[in-house]
């Protein structure tokens, strides 16, 4: 950020004259976000206190805040499960992605850009297609399942799909790129000389990692865990494809309320609760980790 102040010092004069320019640059994008992000959220809040009207799919504003209580009490199990699954998936993704990002940043030489592209490339196969592929690979007829039973890692009677394990594994898998990319970009910014200096001062590889690399990569860890945890907590596709009725997450409840039951107020109350819960957690997490430079 030091660089920014350096630049603004240099052009202080011209900036004062044309201080409307930044606002001009911001205007179109912010207008878009105002109308298609903020306004919808406000509509959501207003819908959440409505009660059913005369016709099907018609709702009247009655400011019934008890909607929130009813909705949360009825789906508290799914709420807790979502946060539990998302937390485990985030930790798993961090464990898998950190060495991956580290290898791309420091050990890939001229392959760096190719490997980075490979991290995003699976998006083009569609995550639903890949999730279905996992279901088939790990299902009773799948090659993965047969391979694992052949290795005697699992018994032929066991089930890998339609389980909590499969849902968490699916979440971990699907959000892995969102963990890897921010980790990579903060690792890449580390000056390798800081690590060499640590070695020169007789730190071993582990100490260097713990005292130099990891602290310097914290912004990436925070950004990556957020970009994994947030979508994972709101996901319903993995639970639907890889889970069973006992692994339903809050996303499944909201989705069903909206698109199948057409109970907009309950769905809106649950959505807004989910959003606020996540925002509170995110704020506490960012405060605690001390990185405010997320955006």
């Amino acid at each position, binding site marked *: 950020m030091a660089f920014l102040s350096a630049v603004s010092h240099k052009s202080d004069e011209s900036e004062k004259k044309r201080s409307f320019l930044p606002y001009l640059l911001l205007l179109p994008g912010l207008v878009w976000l105002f109308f298609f992000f903020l306004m919808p959220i406000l509509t959501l809040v207003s819908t959440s206190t409505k009660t059913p009207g005369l016709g099907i799919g018609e709702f009247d504003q009655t400011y019934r805040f008890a909607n929130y209580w009813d909705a949360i009490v009825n789906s508290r199990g799914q709420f807790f499960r979502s946060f539990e699954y998302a937390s485990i998936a985030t930790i798993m993704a961090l464990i898998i992605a950190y060495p991956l990002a580290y290898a791309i940043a420091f050990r890939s030489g001229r392959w760096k850009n190719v490997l980075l592209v490979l991290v995003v*490339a699976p998006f083009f196969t569609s995550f639903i*297609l890949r999730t279905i592929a996992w279901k088939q690979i790990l299902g009773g007829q799948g090659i993965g399942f047969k391979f694992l039973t052949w290795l005697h890692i699992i018994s032929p009677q066991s089930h890998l799909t339609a389980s909590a394990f499969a849902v968490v594994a699916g979440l971990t898998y699907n959000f892995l790129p969102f963990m890897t990319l921010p980790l990579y970009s903060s690792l890449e910014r580390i000056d390798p000389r800081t690590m060499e200096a640590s070695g020169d001062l007789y730190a071993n590889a582990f100490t260097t990692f713990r005292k130099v690399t990891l602290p310097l990569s914290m912004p990436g860890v925070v950004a990556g865990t957020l970009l994994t945890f947030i979508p994972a907590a709101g*996901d319903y596709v993995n639970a639907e494809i890889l889970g069973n009725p006992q692994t339903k997450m809050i996303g499944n409840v909201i989705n069903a309320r909206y698109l199948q039951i057409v109970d907009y107020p309950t769905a809106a109350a649950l959505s807004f609760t989910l959003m606020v819960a996540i925002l509170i957690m995110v704020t506490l997490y960012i405060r605690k980790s001390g990185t405010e430079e997320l955006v």
Partner: protein
Amino acid sequence: MRKARRWFSRNLIRIYAVMGFTYLFIPVLYTFAFSFNNSSKSNLVWRGFTFNNWKNPCGAPDVCNALGNSIKIGLIATAIATVLGTMIAFALGRYAFKGRSLVNLLIFLPMATPELVLGASLLTMFLNFGFNPGFVTIVIAHVMFCISFVVVTVKARIASLDPRLEQAAMDLYADERETFRRITFPLLAPGIAGAALLAFSLSFDDFIITNFNSGNVNTFPKFVYISAERGLPAQANVIGSAMFFIALIVVLLGQVVQRRRKVS
């Protein structure tokens, strides 16, 4: 001893990375393999090798229409989001102005909101205003969630730009416009291209927000999701694999071009 350990730790991380990529690509490989499956309806068990699915990628009803929609939506949304996002990134990266933290918050919030909430709230608003969901609403939604990712990507690039290059241009009597055109923009172009690629891949792969705001319009992920209930046709595997390879080739060609430019 220290050397040996260092060698081991270096290669350990490489081995680990290979395993990580294998994990990432197992379902892609599986999808590719089963695109050659001689299956008539459901593509669950292997029934023999065939090229028929690749010869006839549009053979399953509606699959190519859905793919066309996805590509169109992706291109339009990427273009709009990249322009709007880059402008915001410039304002944030280059100017001091009042209300900066508010802007940062507004950029951050869509990323901190689960897709489900974004999709559901947009649909609620569209329905309230009697606006029928369809192609336009999908584009609107995709631009909305892509903007923040573009801003963050381009802003990081602007922050890593060496200010001395621009100062040098100014010292050589280039005015601000010329400096921007000949120095700043070319230096930022790879970052902007990266942001556009990210936006396109997010848009192309989006299902949750799209499913809420698409009405009767089909997209490729939506097609896969809906037809999975009745048994996925092998054509879905063909298109998933083909898009994967096309994206890879396009990006690699871009890399080659960029490298050539650097050399010359």
